[in-house]
């Protein structure tokens, strides 16, 4: 009944994904926002520092030099040294690993549990929705950091447990966001059309609804990474995160507080690092939210 002769190969993408991204509407809209671009650049810079730490760090971050204790910044030690004579620049560079790892992993955990639960709550509704939503409300009633610290204290002090605790604490944010978005997308005509062509329910949820809420999840993830980095630093400050002598910005601040008046650089650099990283993630998140906001199109 149907006869055609295709003139060119079909179905193959015209360009590779990287090129596609730089041509996409998201990129065009994001690149118009200077603050978001700055955020993106700093985030990428911090990430490359974390990845390349062994190559970039001028000294071993745990090597103690008792002849150079609490030295002010100099040509030999650009950021100075700490109370055990360790090079602060090297510790900052290695500390970026702990911070970013904690941010990314804990948000990964939060999304891996929260998004499926939110999808189930929003899509299935009824008793399942009631159970998941009440559980979410209960968790959100506790302050974020307090709950994370309580969980970490319960699990025992280590970076893995800190990430787990932050991830579980951030999970209800994703449950609630996913549920709300699913409820609004579920009412769209194309979801009804998808069931009118014989799709099973799980496929409608995963293939038809989930991709349409990814932008919102992406924004929430970026902003939550910032919160998770602060939470990790706070927990390391309290001794619940990465254990000494391994370098972490939070624990560096902790040891610096005893020498604030005579070695302020010990507190300055880790504080500045946390500030800049968190600010960059927030700028990027805000920029993404504006770029993805349908009202601003």
């Amino acid at each position, binding site marked *: 009944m149907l006869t055609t002769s295709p003139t060119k190969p079909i*179905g193959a993408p015209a360009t590779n994904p990287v090129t596609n991204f730089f041509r996409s509407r998201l990129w065009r809209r994001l690149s118009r926002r200077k603050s978001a671009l700055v955020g993106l650049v700093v985030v990428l810079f911090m990430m490359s520092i974390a990845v390349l730490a062994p190559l970039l760090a001028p000294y071993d971050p745990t090597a103690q030099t008792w002849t150079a204790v609490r030295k002010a910044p100099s040509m030999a030690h650009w950021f100075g040294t700490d109370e055990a004579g360790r090079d602060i620049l090297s510790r900052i560079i290695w500390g970026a690993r702990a911070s970013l790892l904690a941010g990314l992993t804990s948000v990964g955990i939060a999304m891996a549990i929260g998004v499926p639960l939110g999808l189930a709550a929003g899509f299935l509704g009824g008793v399942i929705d009631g159970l998941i939503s009440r559980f979410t409300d209960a968790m959100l009633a506790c302050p974020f950091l307090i709950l994370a610290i309580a969980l970490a204290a319960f699990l025992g002090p280590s970076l893995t447990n800190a990430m787990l605790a932050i991830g579980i604490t951030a999970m209800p944010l994703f449950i609630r966001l996913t549920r709300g978005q699913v409820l609004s997308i579920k009412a769209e005509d*194309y979801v009804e*059309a998808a*069931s*009118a062509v*014989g*799709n*099973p329910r799980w496929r409608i949820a995963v293939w038809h609804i989930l*991709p*349409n809420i990814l932008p919102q999840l992406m924004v929430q993830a970026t902003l939550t990474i910032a919160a998770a980095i602060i939470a990790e630093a706070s927990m390391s400050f309290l001794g619940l995160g990465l254990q000494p002598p391994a370098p972490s910005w939070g624990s560096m601040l902790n040891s610096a507080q005893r020498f604030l008046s005579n070695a302020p650089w010990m507190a300055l650099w880790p504080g500045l690092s946390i500030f800049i990283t968190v600010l960059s993630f927030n700028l990027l998140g805000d920029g993404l939210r504006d770029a993805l906001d349908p009202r601003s199109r």
Partner: protein
Amino acid sequence: MSTLPHIHQDPSARSVRADNDPSTRVLEVANLRVVFEDETRTVTAVDGVSFSVHKGRTLAIVGESGSGKSVTSLAVMRLLPEHSARISGSVHFDGRQLLDETKSGMRSLRGNRMAMIFQEPMTSLNPSYTVGEQINEVILRHRDISKKEATQRGIDMLKLVRIPSPEARYSQFPHNLSGGMRQRVMIAMALACDPELLIADEPTTALDVTIQAQVLELMRDLQQKTGTAIVLITHDLGVVAESCDDVIVMYAGQVVEQCSVEDLFSFPQHPYTVGLLGSLPRLDEKRDQLVAITGTVPDMANLPSGCRFRARCPFSVAKCAEMPELMEVSAGHLSRCWRTPLQDLVP
């Protein structure tokens, strides 16, 4: 534009009605009732609707908003939410009783042997996927063929619904397409698996008039080629005149008149149909003013006793306090009115 013979050319051939020929019957709905219930009220949205659709023919379901026409079509497809809608009666499709069919049985029919087109082409396609991915999904769900063959089939379908440069359109996203183009894509998706039955719920309502005519003509041509039976849900009598064979007119959840298209326009037998026709602008008669039907549709949760059109009817008499049955006025022409035939009556 079309080289195909116009299907309305020969009224005498059309008047040989296929209603009683079971071999061409694709869908038979009998005494369909849909009741929506919640804590506070019970609404009978569809009340004892019966009709059948035949291969190669188009049945129009006409009625104003809230008359139950869309609910009827969703009930046939079993797309109503099961926890709130109670459906009774019978829906026979290909010898199967759809109301007893399992969920997976229904899924294998939907999109495959019975397809649906929705009113809003702008929102009926998923914005996250290309046109091709969405057509492919339907084909691969119901046909055991390779992705490459499905792609070829998809492009053939786009060609069939006369989308220019189908290969390019195939890899575009819905936001790259106009409304008329998207409705063509919806039709291509609906027809991709050669369904026996196509339910089109106000397929042209959201389109502008010139595109409407093109889409209707496209559907007519495709029906000639494939023999698909079509149920066309509409409130637009112009669309009915242009593209349908048989008509049922619905009012407040009931069928009030059932006949061929010719009879509907030449000998309307229900006062509601007469009112609908009277409210149409026409070129061949001078009308100073369009006649609106007075009053409003009754509240479905609180229906009056007797004939549901009684309060708005210029012909109503005391007997109308009793609910009339659908009565045969002439062969194949049914009307739910005590006062039919209406010819000699004056309101």
